[in-house]
């Protein structure tokens, strides 16, 4: 893996989200707790809603368009709905957010 710094943890509000543009498409970064961040595709597998605009609760997000709920850990749709969104490796170090560049389709920044 090659970790790449994409911003400060505090750029994402608690229980909020931000978008990062990548070669693999828009990826949403969710801050679920103090220093806990998840990365998934920003695109709802149902009708393409922007997940970063959804309400973040527990380790889940609710799509703003039709209230599909996604697990940020597994990418699985919750409840009666079925489907999956891509998840990406992400970690927080010293107040910075690092994402796996290869996983989002970017050549190693060497």
């Amino acid at each position: 893996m090659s970790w790449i710094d994409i911003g400060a943890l505090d750029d994402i509000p608690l229980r909020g989200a931000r978008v990062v543009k990548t070669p693999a498409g828009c990826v949403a970064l969710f801050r679920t707790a103090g220093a806990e961040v998840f990365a998934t595709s920003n695109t709802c597998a149902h009708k393409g809603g922007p997940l970063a605009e959804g309400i973040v609760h527990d380790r889940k997000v609710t799509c703003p368009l039709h209230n599909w709920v996604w697990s940020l850990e597994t990418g699985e749709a919750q409840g009666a709905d079925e489907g999956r969104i891509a998840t990406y490796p992400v970690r927080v170090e010293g107040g910075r957010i690092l994402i796996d560049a290869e996983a989002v389709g970017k050549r190693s920044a060497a």
Partner: protein
Amino acid sequence: MERLVVIGAGMASGRLLEHLFEAAPEKFEVTLFNAEPRGNYNRIMLSPVLSGEKSYAEIVTHDDDWYAAHGVTCRFGERIRRIDRDRRVVVGTTGEVPYDRLVIATGSDPFIVPCPGHDLDGVIAYRDLDDTNRMIDQPQGARAVVIGGGLLGLEAAAGLRLRGMEVTVLHLAGHLMERQLDPAAGYLLRADLERRGITVMTQASTKCIRGDGKVETVELEDGTVLPADLVVMAVGIRPAVALARDAGLTVGRAIEVDAQMQTSDPDVFALGECVEFTGQLFGLVAPLYDQAKVLAATLLGQEAAFAPKQLSTKLKVTGCDLFSAGDFAEGPGREDIVFRDPARGIYKRLVVEDDRLVGAVMYGDTADGNWFFGLIKDGTDVSEMRETLIFGPAYQGGAAADPMAAVAALPADAEICGCNGVCKGQIVSAIEGGATDLGAVRAQTKASASCGTCTGLVEQVLAATLGEAFAMPAAQPVCGCTDLSHEDVRRLIKAQELKSQPAVWQELGWRTPNGCHVCRPAVNFYLLADWPLEYLDDPQSRFVNERKHANIQKDGTFSVVPRMWGGITSAAELRAIADAAEKYDVPTVKVTGGQRIDLLGVKGEDLPAMWADLNAAGLVSGHAYSKGLRTVKTCVGTDHCRFGTQDSTGLGIRLERRLWGSWTPHKVKLAVSGCPRNCAEATCKDVGIVCVDSGFEIGVGGAAGMDVKEVERLVKVATEDEAVEWTVAFVQLYREHAKYLDRPYKWLSKVGLDWVKETLSDAATRTALVERFDLSQTIYQTDPWAELAVREKARAFAPIADLTLEAAE
């Protein structure tokens, strides 16, 4: 017809009359005297009236229509001078009334501590509606000292605190409610009250009350001096027996009666708090209702005898769950079974003597109270279940922990409603006779009709009896995170002074770590509506539209709608809108039904810059996305129209300027039409005003969406100022009471337009509502566009990073 004179229109005599009219409607010609200038109301419910959780109208038991329907001659507000038993007349201040039989139901007077200063202005008792109103009339922040930490004193203290006063409770004994609670439960109760901001002082003996004509301080024996604007005496009651004594009836501590409620004069009867029976006095409502039943039978020539029963107590302070019954003093041969759960603030203590349960005190979780009370009354041998007794009925006999099973297992004579002495058997037979919902059971049996704490039990009896046919009503939970309904959550946020979302999740036992997309926006709204100064709006608990201050479209773009006050715009504003539309490549520009312009298809990251441009031209957010004030649609009124009767445009603009920016349970749309031709379509709005020559007709509760509904008349007022005042007060009442996502018409269908009219018809209530609205507006009437368009906030609208760009190396 026999002439029956009743002195005192309280709960006991009220119940007596109900029994008499039900059994023999034509037998008695009743004259009813009451010193209070009103009829019978549910005195137990004064505490919720004091705290603002109920209105007086809701606790009236018998209204004028009821008295009229039963031919009762009401002499309210009139005191009786004397009873002349020789001539068989009572002498009131406006004349004599002869009787064949007389019922004395004079109740009791509050006991006033005879310390120096007890007669100063501002020293009151807590006994009737007038006392309650005097407490309600105190300004926010007034300092109240409540003398007496018993049931009544604590209910008064909690109510005053909810009204925003600084409250200190003085109690002579070592712990609160020492007659009903042991010290451990007293401690928990004290901690609960202190958490609400009530100061509790035990072993506090009042020396004197000082002040120049009006209360200023309370001085204690130990030298402590407490500043006070109001002193409430709640140290006890004394039977009101002066009339009876002067009439020569036998009076001990109270009017002595036999088991048929007859006094020493065979034609004079007495019941309620003014009687003494085998040396006992009575203060709780349950035995009074028993007496009423017995006296009704006696007057009708039937056999009946009054026998006092064991009593249990519950405190009616929302959020303080407390139950006590029987005798819980320690003593030789008595064993205690104690259960504590400090984390949840639960304490239960059972006292067992000779294998019988003799006392129970519970705090924090009182669900099993009635079951324990039953064991005490019946003297059940508990040796077999000694080990698991404290865990309640669910753990006995290996049955599953199912509350329904516990209710189903209750015997037919188990008491469900303590106030009205209704047992399970009566409720079951009412249900089998066709009473299939709570309202019908309540109407037929009176179960849960007084203090209401047994409502849940009654519903469980309904469920157990009807099985599948009964859908547990009411408690439709907010979402999967909690079992509480919206109404419960709103009530508890106020009662427990919960001022943050974590406090709500923790104290109300949310099952999820931080809610979900359903409850978070609702809780966020309730908190900001109830605590505008203490709670800060949480954007992360808002639906995207309210967080981004724009409406999300199906392709993830947004729409931008600037406010046009009352639908009036100018060439400069239109030019700014046109410029913005061009600059940001807006694909669709549409005129909306709310008399303004919608720019659709704006990219999220362009929003802050576009807002800044619109702000520069004096345009602000139209909140076209919010659960808040949307538009005030107007017609041109007297400005141009030859039919216009008033300046409808001016009023519309004035209302929009007053109301904009406020968050409400759901969106709110207004309109003002200048004449009954109603060009602004005011009659299908949440609030619609139609101007006429003589003033303004304000209608509320209209709808023109999924439901179509015409407004109903709230009021007609003469001046524009009044129209604004009523509208603001209505909106604030809606903000304070409605369930999140209920439009006004839905809310009105639940609480009733009559209640809203009655509440708002009181000028002081209206003023207070307007004040609370304006206070909230000092925080929330800001243009979100201007706030978010600044550079640091605007960044949040753009991606945090763009990895599609090659790194510049």
